[in-house]
Each structure stands twice: as C-alpha cells, then as structure tokens.
C-alpha cells in the first residue's frame, strides 16, 4: 500500500528552482531516506511534505488523500526537527503530551501513552525534567518520542542526528531504527550523511540540484549507481575518465591499460567514465604484483581498515584496504603495485 506519494512536485524561490519534478512513492511502514549534499533541495522537499512550504506544481498525497493545499496542522504528519524544536518552557512530559492534548485525548490516556513512549526511549526517570536541563542525546530522544506518540501517518526526520557527537549518533540511529520497526510508521528521513542513510533505510533517494538521481535499496544504489554523482556521493568512488581500446579489450586511462572483464557492460565507442570504489583497488608490495605502479601519498589507519591515497600516473586514487602486515609497512612515499577490479566498478558513457 502506498502511503505517501509525490507527483511531479516542483518548487522555486523566486527565479531559483530548488525542487524540480520529483516523483516518489513510499510504501506504508517503509523507512525511506533522502540523501544529497547541502543545498540539493532535500529539506525543502521534506518541508513540502510537512506542509510548511507549498509546491509550485504537482500533488502530494498522504494516506491516499490529496494534501497539497492542506495546512500542516491537518496533515497527520509528525516531524523531528534538526534542532529538535522542543518547547523550552515545558517539561519532558508536557512536550510529549502536547500533540495528544491538541487532539483532545482524554487525560488518562495521555498519561499512559506518554509513559509508554518515554519508556521506549529510556527517559522514564526524566519525565518531569524541564527540557533545557537535558543533554543533547536526551533532547533528541524526547523529540522522537514527541513525534511518535501521536502515531502520525508519516513521520519526518530533518537531519536529526547532526547535532550529536559521533558515538551518540551511531547508538541513536540504532534506536531510531528499532522504534520505527516496532511502530511501523512510514518514515521519511533527510540527511547528508550517506552512512546514516545506508544503515537505516529500506530505500534511499539520492538528490542533486533539486532532482532525484536514483531511487533504490541501499545495496542497489551502492552496487549499481546510475550516475557518476551517485557513485561518488554514496560509495566515495574514484572517477576515472578514459576510453575503451577494442583491440586489446582494455580500458585506457592516460595511456594506462586495464583488461576488461567479460561481464562488464560498456559502450563500444567514445570516452567513458569509470567509477571505481575504494575497496575495488588492491595494493601489492612493490615488484610483486599489480597492473601499474603507484606511490603512497597518505595513509589513515582506522583499525580494521586503512585508507590510502595512492598517486598513479598523476591521478590520486582513494583506496580502502583491510589492515594487514603489508598495509602497516606502507609508509608515505613508498612504491606499491596497484590493480583495479573492474567487475566491481561501474562504467558510464563519457558525455
């Protein structure tokens, strides 16, 4: 069942087009993320779903009803704001109860529902604490509880984790995922952090300059990006420009030849661009392997993996390798052998 649907939605601020012809269909109970760099229009799109902005053209359907011209207060949409937007003059209880009171829920029921949701976000002890006295992570959880407790048709998140520190971000995102699975509320989650989107979502839409570049499950988008932008934004891919040499059946980049595996679809003619994921590049001890030679420019040891920047033929490549005896020995400036697994890369025509 489709729960939220955007049909040809566009929006412009004066002459500037911020969202153009967006079409989305989100299933009931789905966790759907919109990712993109800042300024891509993702927040505007979310605010149009909430009703704070109205689209210039197109329709927005929530739960099957056309909500395009309906004000936010009549949409049954919950929202978790980037800065949480908790009411600073109220306690945790008062904040969470606000939406239920607005709906004239009986007092007893309010009490029970607020207590239940606060238990779910582990804030039972803080029920009567004024929100300014809470930590950032606690405030975040109050914001989630406040949006969830009214059981909206669609729940919207606007970069809700960007004000938290790294460790809190990871644990909170697990909590959000768990709560969403349990409540099965249709969720739209906006973020610029691709790892957040990948770990949380059933499906992801990648946005760029107001338009959607690709929609798919995290693995679909990661494994088969439909554009070089998507490959770079989600996979952190290296983008190489070259051509296909049909005689040797190889990809030529700056005179540097790579054999093409048979499984890879590629255009027969003209320039091509190849998105190569950092983990599709292998490093070898100098002189023992690899198709070409490179020089280590940077090494960033992360424990399980190590990130390198390797200079090959004047091109700087990002490489992620599992940490090993070899990788720890590769000091800055040392020479290495480099090979690329093209079967795990994506080819795009060059124009």
């Amino acid at each position: 069942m489709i729960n939220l649907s955007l049909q040809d939605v566009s929006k412009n601020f004066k002459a500037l087009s911020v969202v153009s012809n967006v079409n989305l269909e989100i299933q009931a109970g789905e966790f759907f993320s919109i990712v993109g760099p800042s300024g891509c229009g993702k927040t505007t799109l979310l605010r149009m779903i909430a009703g704070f902005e109205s689209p210039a053209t197109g329709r927005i359907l929530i739960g099957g009803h056309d909500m395009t011209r309906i004000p936010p207060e009549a949409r049954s949409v919950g929202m978790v704001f980037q800065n949480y937007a908790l009411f600073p003059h109220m306690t945790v209880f008062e904040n969470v109860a606000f939406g239920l009171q607005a709906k004239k829920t009986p007092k007893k029921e309010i009490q029970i529902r607020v207590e239940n949701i606060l238990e779910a976000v582990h804030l039972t002890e803080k029920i009567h604490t004024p929100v300014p006295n809470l930590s950032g992570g606690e405030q975040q959880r109050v914001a989630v509880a406040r949006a969830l407790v009214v059981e909206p048709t669609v729940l919207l998140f606007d970069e809700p984790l960007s004000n938290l520190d790294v460790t809190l971000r990871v644990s909170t995102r697990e909590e959000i995922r768990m709560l969403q699975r349990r409540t099965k509320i249709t969720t739209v989650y906006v973020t610029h952090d691709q790892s957040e989107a990948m770990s949380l979502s059933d499906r992801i839409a990648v946005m760029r300059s107001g338009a959607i570049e690709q929609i798919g499950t995290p693995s679909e988008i990661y494994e088969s990006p439909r554009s070089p932008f998507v490959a770079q934004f989600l996979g952190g891919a290296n983008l190489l420009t070259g051509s296909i040499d049909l005689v040797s059946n190889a990809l030529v980049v700056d005179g540097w030849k790579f054999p093409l595996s048979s499984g890879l679809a590629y255009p027969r003619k003209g320039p091509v661009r190849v998105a190569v994921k950092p983990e599709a590049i292998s490093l070898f001890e100098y002189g023992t392997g690899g198709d070409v030679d490179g020089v280590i420019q940077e090494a960033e040891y992360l424990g399980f993996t190590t990130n390198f920047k390797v200079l090959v033929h004047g091109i700087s490549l990002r490489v992620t390798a599992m940490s090993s005896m070899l990788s720890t020995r590769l000091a800055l400036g040392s020479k290495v052998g480099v090979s690329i697994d093209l079967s795990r890369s994506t080819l795009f025509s060059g124009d």
Partner: protein
Amino acid sequence: MRRFRFAALAPVLLLFVLFGYVLYPLATTISESVHINGRLSLVHYFDLLNPANTASWEAVWNSVYVSFLSVLCSGLVGVLFAFVLTQMDFPLKNTISRLVVLPIALPPLVGVISFLFVFGESGILPRIVQLLIGSKPFGLDGISAIVVVHTYSFYVYFYLFVSTALRQLDSSLLEAASGLGGSAWNNFRRVILPELRPALTAASILTFMASMASFSAPFLFGGEKRFMTLQIYSSKLNGELSTASAQAVGLTVVSVAFFVVLRMSANASRLSRRNRGAVKSRPIEVGRRTKRLLIGVCVLTIIFEILPLLTIALISLAKEGSWTWQILPTAYTFDNYLKLFSDPHVFDPIRNSLLMTLVTLIAALIVGVSAAYFVTKGRSRTSKTMADVLVTLPFAVPGTVVAFSLILAFSSPNFFSGYKTLIGTFWILPLAYFVRTFPLIVRSTSASLEQMDDSLMEAGQTFGAGLIMRFRKIALPLILPGIVSGSMLVMIAALGEFVSSILLYTYSSRPISVEILSQLRTYNFGAASAYCVFLLVLVLTVISAANRLLTRHRHGDQAINF
C-alpha cells in the same frame, strides 16, 4: 481553502497606526509650517532663523547648551557609579546598586518638584543655610537647576550602558596590555576607553535627545529663559500655530538626526560584540585611597538623590498653610492622602490617569505585539526594515511635538479620528500616550521573539494545534517576559505623563501630573506632594508586580500544569 494568516493582518494594522497617528499628524505639522494664509511659503522658517529674532536663537542656544552640559554631568555620575559598582566591593553595595536605577522609575515631573522643594530658591536646604549663616548663598535656579535635574534623570543611561560594557570587558585584554609594559593610565586610555566607547556614545546621544526634548525641568526651573520645547508650548498657547509648527519641525529634525546617529552606532557596536563567547572578567585594580574616595562620592550622591524623595514624603504630610517661610512644615496631617480618595474632585485626576493608562496599555499591547511579530517574523526584508524604522520613530519625536501634531491633525473630524473631533475629549490623551509608548512594547517583545526559533511554531503545527493554541501555549509563554517588561515601561510612562498632557488636557480630563502642577501653582504643596507620592507608589507597585511575574515565570518550569 486559503488559510488565515495572522502575519498578513499585522502589517495592515501596523500601517494604519503608523500612518494615521504618527505620519499623518507629523505631515500636517510640516504642511502647517510651510503655509501662510493658505499659500505655500517658508516665511515661518525665515522668521525663526532670522538673526534678528533673538528669542528664537536664544531658545536654540539654551536647549543645546543645557543638553551638552547634561550629557557631560550625567556621563560623569553614571560612569562613576558604573565603575564603582562593577569593580569594587563594599558593605552597602547591594543597597546602592538597587537605589542607583531608581530615577528611571521616577515620573519627570515628580523628580523636578522634589528637587524644587529641597534645592530650589525657597527650598529646604537654602533655608537651613540661611538660618545658619544669615544670607542665602545658593538656590538652584535656571540653567544649573535644569542641568542638575537632567543629570538626576539621565545618568542611569550611562550607568546601565557602561556597567554592561565593563562587565563584558575581557580582563585578558588588560593582562595582555600590562604584560606589554603599559602603565595604568595608558591601559585606561588605550585599552579600557575604546572598549567603552560604544556604550558612551549611545548613552550620550540618548541623554542629548532626552535633554533636547525635556519639558518639565525648563518649564518649572527655566524662569524667563527660553527653550525650544517651551517655545512650541507658548506659541501654541498664543494661537500662533504656524510658528509653533515650524518650531516643532525644527526640534524634530534635530532629535531625529541624533536618533539616526544613535541607531547607526548601536548597530556598529552590536556587530563588534558578536561572536564573543564567555569572557573572564576581573576587577580593574585601583589604589586604596582612590577607592575610598570614589566610594565616598557615590554614597554622598545617593544621599543627595534620596533626600528629595524623603522631602516630598514629608511635605505630603504637611497641613495646608503650615509651610510658608519655615524651614520645615510646622503641622502634620494625613488629610492630603485621605482627600485623594474621599473628595471626588481630588480623586478625578487619579481616575483619569488610571483609565488612560489602561486604555494606552491595551492599545499598545495589541499594536505593539503584532508589530513585533511582523518586524521579527515577516517575510519581506525591506518591509521589515521599514517597519522597524517607522516603529522607532515615535521614540525620536519629542513629546511636545507629538502632542502638538495631534492637536493639528485631530482638531477637526477625519477618517483616523472616526469622524469625530478628538481635541478636547478624554481620548486624545491616551492616544498621545499610545503613540509615545507603543514602541517600547515592540522593542521588548521583538527582542524575545527574535530568540524564539520558528521551528517551535512549526512543531506545534505538525501536532494539529491551531493558531490560537500555538500562540497561547507556545509563543506567549516564551515572549511573556518581553511583553511584561514592555508593559511595565508603558505603564510607568503613561501614569506620570506630563509633557503631552499639558498641551492636550481639559479640566475634566486632567491627569495626575497636570493636577500636581495646578496644586503647586496655588501653593498647595501638601496636596501636590501627596499626588506625587501616590504616583510613586503606583509606579513602584507596577515595577514590583512586573518583577514578580518575571521571576515566577523564570522559575515556573515545573509549576505549569494543565
């Protein structure tokens, strides 16, 4: 279905008020000033600016001269207090820092009269001195008296601005300077003074404007001397409306010019203060002797300040006719107070003032809060800036000019007066009070609104809360401190308003301040003082009620219940 937008209503209301009751009366005044017998002419201005017109030039000179002296003296007193109270510790510090801001709550007329009783030509102090040494050595009169009263009323600006600046002064700056080998005097001149400059500039301009617009002090102490505000008043009384108009325009131009400078300097200093996190502030070191001297001067000044208030309280208890040539009244009674409420004739002004204050407050709240909403949350930047400037305009226009322009605009029925003649009615007074005071509510409310995140109201919307519930449960509690402190200022100003009232009142609509003056004129010092004390009590009640509301609100997070 288009939804009803409060934001669309606010600008309409604001525009109506600004145009009808601020711009239109001012335009009428300008128009009156450039017409003679129905023809366009600048002859009134030529008359005023004619070098041979010594009266006119004397008024300009006196106003400017007194204003400069007032800035100088207020600056000295205000900075001294700021310095002593922020940088030093001594036993009476808390009491003094509470008393030091008292003059701001004092209705101007009350301040002037109480000074008159103590330091005036036939005041208590000169009489004591005469008794002791046989001749009358001093008696505040003329320019010196006006400057003293101005200093008393306006040094608070310097005190507040400079003590804020001193508290924000980063002591690491001074440490750095001494580390570089600067002497104490050099440090003061090259490090502290530049840091205080924005505060000093702002306070100076505010004091200068207030002195130029001052009416009560010149009116009671000026004697034969001419001042710009008095000139407008007497021209109006003589029925020379065109001359009065030209004088009003002249005074307004000077005030607005200073006001523009103030706004610009305030904006500049706000920019330079931004991005300055928590600063560490340590007292500036001063020698022990200097410290004692400074504290001594402060304590003496405070006594000098309280003396007039005590005197007025004493005289309010004087029996009628018991204080003529004596140093102190000879017989005491509570009659003056009892009459305030028992004699309907005596109670009239009190009822008038209370009613007018209430009307003013209601109108100022409605217009002020919606204007604040528009100024802070409006969508178009240019209209916001314009509204901001227009809303603060009444601040810059002297009260005498406000009253006079209302006289010109509403002496005949028109659209903005509801096709009635307002002059001569009760309503013209609260209208003048409203024009003069509603910017106070705009200021204080927009300050709180600016700190309120827009997403709070949006969050309320997502929960299905309608406009009224959002305003009542989200916005109102958050902007309440701003509204309360603005209302407090409006009430203080309206309760004791004198400058506009004296031009607009009729016998049946006379407010307390006007009645005080007429009691004074008929030598009923006891009755006049009783009114003064009553006014003071009213003002202090308003202040303490506002403070109580504010503190309860601040600690009330847990107390709010449904």
